[in-house]
């Protein structure tokens, strides 16, 4: 039984070689693809548990591939790219990636991030309410079901974990670092842009008025806070 099936998408054969060798050695099953189109085919046929995606791909770019994968699957996506500007990172996260690693990277770091991506925030009863019922929002944390104004919305696993953590600490500002470590893993803490992107996506799905959020509030320079309205049944 392998630790998980990883799809490596990169047009550079040497990278694929190193990844295949190292990841196999760490117990993962590795499949690879050299283009976005190839990746989508492998995704359908082999159903990997995680995708390592290069941005600079021939034909369909990595960003486009990321969008298509995310549209049809919840599989965690980690971007591997030589592009290192904040804009590139935000674009990739916006396209549905869960994490972004800049090339060249240390294998230790990548392995840690892969482990973090496989890890789910445990849904223990102490971590928060099992059911959240508000005026226009209903969340069943055990069934991972979110209903906004009578229609079910779909949250990605990272979005869901982030939301659950904020709800579990409703009313108190959660600092960036704490939030990152809780949702992504202990190796994180500086990736404030991740939060910006994911909070923004959460708000788009949950908030009735994006320009004036009522549930997920920004605490300037500190972090985010879930504001619990008076009337609730948790």
């Amino acid at each position, binding site marked *: 039984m392998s630790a998980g099936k990883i799809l490596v998408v990169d047009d*550079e054969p*040497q*990278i694929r*070689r*190193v*990844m295949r*060798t*190292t990841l196999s*050695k760490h117990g993962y099953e590795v499949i690879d693809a050299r283009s976005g189109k190839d990746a989508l085919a492998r995704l359908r046929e082999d159903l990997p548990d995680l995708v390592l995606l290069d941005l*600079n791909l021939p034909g369909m770019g990595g960003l486009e591939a990321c969008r298509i994968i995310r549209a049809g699957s919840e599989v965690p996506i980690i971007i591997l790219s*030589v592009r*290192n500007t*904040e804009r590139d990172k935000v674009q990739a996260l916006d396209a549905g990636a869960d994490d972004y690693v800049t*090339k*060249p*990277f*240390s*294998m*230790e770091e*990548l*392995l840690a991030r892969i482990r973090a991506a496989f890890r789910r925030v445990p849904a223990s009863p102490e971590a928060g309410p099992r059911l959240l019922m508000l005026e226009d929002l209903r969340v069943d944390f055990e069934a991972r079901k979110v209903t906004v104004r009578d229609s079910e919305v779909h949250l990605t696993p990272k979005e869901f974990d982030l939301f659950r953590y904020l709800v579990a600490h409703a009313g108190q500002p959660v600092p960036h670092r704490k939030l990152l470590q809780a949702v992504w893993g202990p190796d994180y803490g500086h990736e404030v842009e991740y939060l910006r992107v994911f909070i923004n996506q959460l708000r788009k799905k949950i908030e009735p008025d994006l320009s004036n959020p009522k549930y997920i509030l920004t605490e300037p320079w500190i972090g985010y806070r879930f504001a619990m309205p008076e009337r609730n049944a948790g």
Partner: protein
Amino acid sequence: MILELLKRSAVHIVEETLIPLDFTIHNWLLRRILRLAAAVGIIAVILALFLRISYLGKTAIVLSLLLAVLGIASRWGFAESLAAAIAAGLFVECFVAPPFGLGAPQHWIALSAFLITAITTTELSMRARRKEREASARRRELESLYNFSQAILQCATVESTLKNVVDRIVEVFGVEAAALYYRPKDVIFEAGSGCAAIGEGSLRAAVNAENPQLEPVSRRAIMPIHLNGCTVGSLGLTGASLSETLIQAIAHRVDIALERTSALEEAARSDAARKSEELKSVVLDALAHDLKTPLSSIKAAATSLLSEISHASAGDFELLCVINEESDRLNRIMNEAVEMARIEVGIVELKRLQYSIRETVYAALEDLNPAADGRLIEIDIPETLPPVDIDFCLVKQVFKQLLDNALKYCPKTSPVVVSSECPKDSVTVSVADSGPGIPESEWNRIFEKHYRGCEGRQGTPGTGMGLAIAKNIVEKHGGRIWVTGRPERGAVFHVSFPIHGARTP
């Protein structure tokens, strides 16, 4: 009434004696004399005819003569009709006298009728002819103006347009010479012969004048030329009597042509600049990607082996560390080289906003996280420091570089001190370390690319580009970066930004 008629006849005579341009004096005189003779001749012939056919009666003779005067007046001119009228009067007096007898009032009446007919008819026909002349002159002007506009709107550059303007003016409007002074390039374009008559001095002086200067006597005109509402030159013409309206119309057409080509040139220039920047950006990205891709494989492979260190011997571990560290170094060098190139070729555009320098310094500090190594940094920047117009990310990088340098050279036990000053229109931040300091001879050179300090500053890893990049960023903001030293007690780097955002062009 007689007086009025005489006055008009005087005007006609003056008008008629003005020699049209296309005739030589000799030709013109000969023609007039011939016509005068012909006018008198016609009257004589009519009279002779009527004298032969005497049964027609005197009234018919007088009426026929009157018609003849009328005809001559409307066809030829004042002098001819006057001659015909007098001749007719005299002939009636002499040959058709009986039965009234000489000097009878009827004869005076006949003579007056001839004269009044001659004067009035000439007056009317002259007026009509004058109108027609004016109309055709106007039409010719419009045609020339149209041809001129067409011709000068076909050039792609400002200079070719201006050269074309003077050539076409000479060609289309038939002036002797045309000269155009264009101030931005300080050049004079000339066409035709006799440009000296326009005068270089007058042309240059006309740039400061508001209105066209017309000198009908010397037949010279100088008018200002405008571009985007400013006077940028002047156009001088000589050797033709063009109307003021036409001259102003010409100047207006030149303005339009100039505006058009300069807009075209501007568009071409900015397009070329944009294309070249895009190209540079693409080349730099491709270069960075191509260099980093193999490096990624090397680093991934090395770190992969390092992670299973239990299997490797101590010697292998050492070698793997060298591979790993050197890949990091290569990566750093490439990042900085690309960054430097981007800033140098101007691809990096400043995203300026009002920021607090204090916050920027704190943000840089947060990235470096020196507290993790137990390092001390004292920050003495008041919160009241006015905000400056900066690109937050780039300026944060400058402070990161300065703080990183200071931490590198400062002994672990002593603090790096960051302080600020606010002289009237700028904000200065100083970063002081208590390291070995920098000799004064190197104060300027350390900001040069690839320059590495010699004394006491060797042996620390770096690419030698950090300070050059910092200097580039600061100067892009219109600021200044420099270093001073506290003798034997370390270096102090200063960065100053203008408060009112004196942007570099």
